[in-house]
Each structure stands twice: as C-alpha cells, then as structure tokens.
C-alpha cells in the first residue's frame, strides 16, 4: 500500500514516543504555525558556543509533524551548528524532491532515521508538516546567534 511509504514504522514510532518533547531552558524561542492546517510548534534552542546542546519544543499536529520534530531532536542535538545546518539542508532537499529522490548512502549517513521521510515528499500537502519543526529550529538558531542569551526567568 502506498500509504506505508509515508507512514513508515520509524515515523509512527517517533510519533508515538517523541524524543525530547517539552519546553526546557533555551537561548531563543520561536513559534511557528502551518497556516495550511493549523499545526503549531513552540521551539527553543540552547547553544553552548558553537554546539547545539538542546532543542526543546511543545507542538501540536499530525503524526508527520510530531515525528519530524522528534527526529530533529535526535539528529541535531550534540552537533555543531555548522554540521546541524548541513543536516537541515539535506533534509530540506529530500523533502522538496517530490518523491523523485532515492536517498543514497551519503544521504543516509547524514539523515539516519530521517530518510524515512522520503515517502512523505510525494505528498505536497504534508511536506510542510515535515518541515515545520526544522524551519522553526533554523529560525530559532539564527535568533540565538544574533541575540543576547535569554535569561532563565523568561524561559520559564
């Protein structure tokens, strides 16, 4: 069934057991929505110099957008900002491929679990769901890099 290419087990697992969900202390916070469907995410990043030490989030949305935030947390926390940006770009490339891109080994190495989203790229209406958290992360990171750190109280 074609559906299985979108709803891979890996995706359903992340959806049912999201990694890193919840809001914790961070250097910058953003709120993104997908006007198409109303999915929403509040996301914070915590950096330590060049390193992404935490991505925390509160979100509401479909399995795809939930799973994708969980995978984001998995892949990016612990990386340097530069490495993480490369992961983000690769994920973006995969999602914009309209199902025409067969992830190669190099891509699999970068994206790990996230290659499971290849099937989603065939469904234009869902691509935005998959990208919501990634776009929010990129935005929050840019903010964190340009701003003074958020004091703890504000993060509460």
């Amino acid at each position, binding site marked *: *069934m*074609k*559906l299985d290419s*979108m*709803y891979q087990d890996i995706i*359903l697992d992340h959806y049912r057991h999201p990694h890193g969900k919840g809001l914790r202390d961070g250097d910058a916070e953003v709120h993104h929505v997908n006007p*198409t*469907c*109303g*999915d*929403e995410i509040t996301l914070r990043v915590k950096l330590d110099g060049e390193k992404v030490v935490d991505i925390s989030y509160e979100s*509401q*949305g*479909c*399995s*795809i957008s*939930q799973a994708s935030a969980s995978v984001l947390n998995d892949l990016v926390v612990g990386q340097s900002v530069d490495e993480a940006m490369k992961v983000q770009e690769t994920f973006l490339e995969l999602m914009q491929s309209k199902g025409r891109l067969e992830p190669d080994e190099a891509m699999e190495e970068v994206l790990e679990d996230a290659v499971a989203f290849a099937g989603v790229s065939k*469904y234009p209406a*869902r691509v935005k*769901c998959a990208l919501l958290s990634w776009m929010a992360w990129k935005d929050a990171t840019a903010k964190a890099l340009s701003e003074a750190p958020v004091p703890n109280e504000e993060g509460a």
Partner: protein
Amino acid sequence: MTQLQGLLDTEAIRKDFPILDRLVHDGKKIVYLDNAATSQKPRQVLDALNEYYERHNANVHRGVHVLAEEATALYEGARDKVAAFINAPSRDEVIFTKNASESLNLVANMLGWADEPYRVDRDTEIVITEMEHHSNIVPWQLLAQRTGAKLKWFGLTDDGRLDISNIDRVITEKTKIVSFVLVSNILGTVNPVEEIVRRAQDVGALVLIDASQAAPHMVLDVQSLGADFVAFTGHKMCGPTGIGVLWGRQELLEDLPPFLGGGEMIETVSMHSSTYAPAPHKFEAGTPPIAQAVGLGAAVDYLSSLGMDSIAAHEHAITEYAVKRLLEVPDLRIIGPGTAEDRGAAISFTLGDIHPHDVGQVLDEQGIAVRVGHHCARPVCLRYGIPATTRASFYLYSTPAEVDALIDGLEHVRNFFG
C-alpha cells in the same frame, strides 16, 4: 446500504457530473465528501461556459456589435436568474463579485467610507459570531483597526449552537452592523436569523448574512430573511470558481459609496472628478467575471430544476443517516450539533487522538475525499480545545453508500493507527 426517505434520484444526477466517475489511487472511484469546500460542476454548467466562449465571447456593455450584445444579454440574464433564485425585489440589487470573501469585504469597506448614519468609526460597534468563517472575521478586524470601532461577537454553546442569551448586551445602540453566518461551514449549525435580525432592527443596525453554505443547499429568500445584505459564492453551488454574489437593499446600495474604482462603475469621468453609475454597476469595477456569471446562471437553473426543497430534503436524509452512523464509530466525537435538526450537511468530528491530517490521509488512500484542518474557522477549534477537525460534507449527489464508505474508511483509520 439503507433505504432512506426523501432522496433524489442520484443515479441520474451523478451522470451530470463527469468528475464523479474519476478513479483515484489505483482504480478506486472517488467518494467526494468535500462539498463544503467546493462543489463539483454538472455538465450543464460546463456546456454553458463552452457555449459562451465558443460563440458569444465579448466584453459586456459599451458595445454595439453582435457578440457584445449577446455577451451583455447573457451576463445580465445571469443576474436575472440569480435575482429570481434568491427572490430579490429587484435585479439591480444583485452585485457580482469574485467570491463570497469579496462580497463580505465589500460591505465592510462600504461602511468604513460611508456617511452617516451608516458609517462605522470610533465609538461604534461591529458584531459577528465565534463561528464565522475567516472571511467574515478578518474584514471586520481590519475595519475595526482602521476606524477604531469595537469588534464584538456571540459565543458558542457546548453543543455547537450560537449563544444569544446575552443578545441585548452584544447588540446595542452603538452597533452599526451585525454580520453572521446562516449555516456554519465547520459546525453545520443553522443559525436563528429572526431573533438576531429583530434585535438589530430595534437598534438600527444593518444586518449582513453570510449565506455561502446556505445558498447551495436550501431555499434562500432574501426578503423573508429580512437582512440588508446577503453574501454567497458560486463555486459551492455547482457554479464556476471566480464568481460570488452580494445582494443588498436598493436604498442602501444607492446611498453607500463605491469600493473598487474603474471601468464599468462610472457615470462620467474627468481628471478632476468622477460620478458613479447606479447599482449594481457602481460596485462592479472592471471587466466582470462574464463567463463565470453565465456559468452561475446555468448552475442556478440546474439547482432550480431539481428544486431547492428537494435538495434540502435529500441532504437532510443523508445527514441524519451520517450522524447516526458516525456516532456508532468508537472514539468519534462530533464537533457541532449531534442531531440532524437545524443543521446543514457538513459534519466535523475528531477521532480519538488521531490527528485529522492523518485521518484525511488514510481516507484519501481509500478514495474518500474529506477536508481536515480548521476549515477557515480557527476560533471554533480554539473554543472546543481541539487543533483541527475532519469534516465530511454532502451535496445533492451524495448517496447513503458514500456514507457507508466513510464509516468503513474510518474503521480502517482506527486500525491503521490503533
């Protein structure tokens, strides 16, 4: 499949709609339950469009040649048809717009630029409801921001009805306009027009009714509604995209200022000043949606040939059946009235904690087209504490078998995410 009373002859009707034979996802016949978003178009409407373009196309008005005269007669003839369809006292009260959203914005803008006694400005109030479509919220938010007027609204009861228990406090002497939806596109609720109109008239406020989800489905009689303006949209009532209607009372259309300026809406223009044509032309700047009006005229003919009462009866039977069957689905919660009384044929629901996007996706795989999301009525989702709903909506060609397909599909959804 069940034997329901009052159904139309859908077997014959469905032959008029080529798209209903469309196969999707490896040969499944489409089950189109997204009619509140837009309806499908019968052959008769497509024929009218083709006939217009292949034989009569010209710009309207201002022309002395055969095509221009024919195009004008067809365009103005469509206005006659729409006027008759809504029982307008005069054809000149029917304004063609591009969609219901433009119709609603048109009224908001007219009132913002109007002279007294209609002018909305600081110290006046605008009243809407919490179940409005965004197209009947945002224009009023913009008007309120730009004029300093205050925006107020009626809330909702837990079972998806308008809460008008506080009507005397919501609609006051300061109210200039009350704008509300006749049939909600998300809840399906049919609203109590008479009580609201009476109170508005008592305080001298104008009333605008958003009939976008009513015109396709029931007899719409602007005189018996008693409102000052009624807006609706062509594409939901078997007509083409790109055409909407605003009906307004003649005296008001005479008194109120124009909105868009340009060709067709003028009487005489000099560089220094211009005067405007009488309504409806005053409100139709530029080349109108000519073919689309002609198509809407054909749609109105089509609906009338079936009879709006018969269409309403058909949909009522389908809705009653659908509500009953949906309530049998475990974990399913209807957002909106839980019976078929005073409700239209759009039924929103949630299914456990499966997100509507996922519900819609799995239904789609089975060829069943429903809409998911906030349906341009996000305040309703906020009100009921849900992110979104799945909405199945029926029309004159919907069958009990399609309801059954939906129920089976939902079973499959539950298994998939179970």
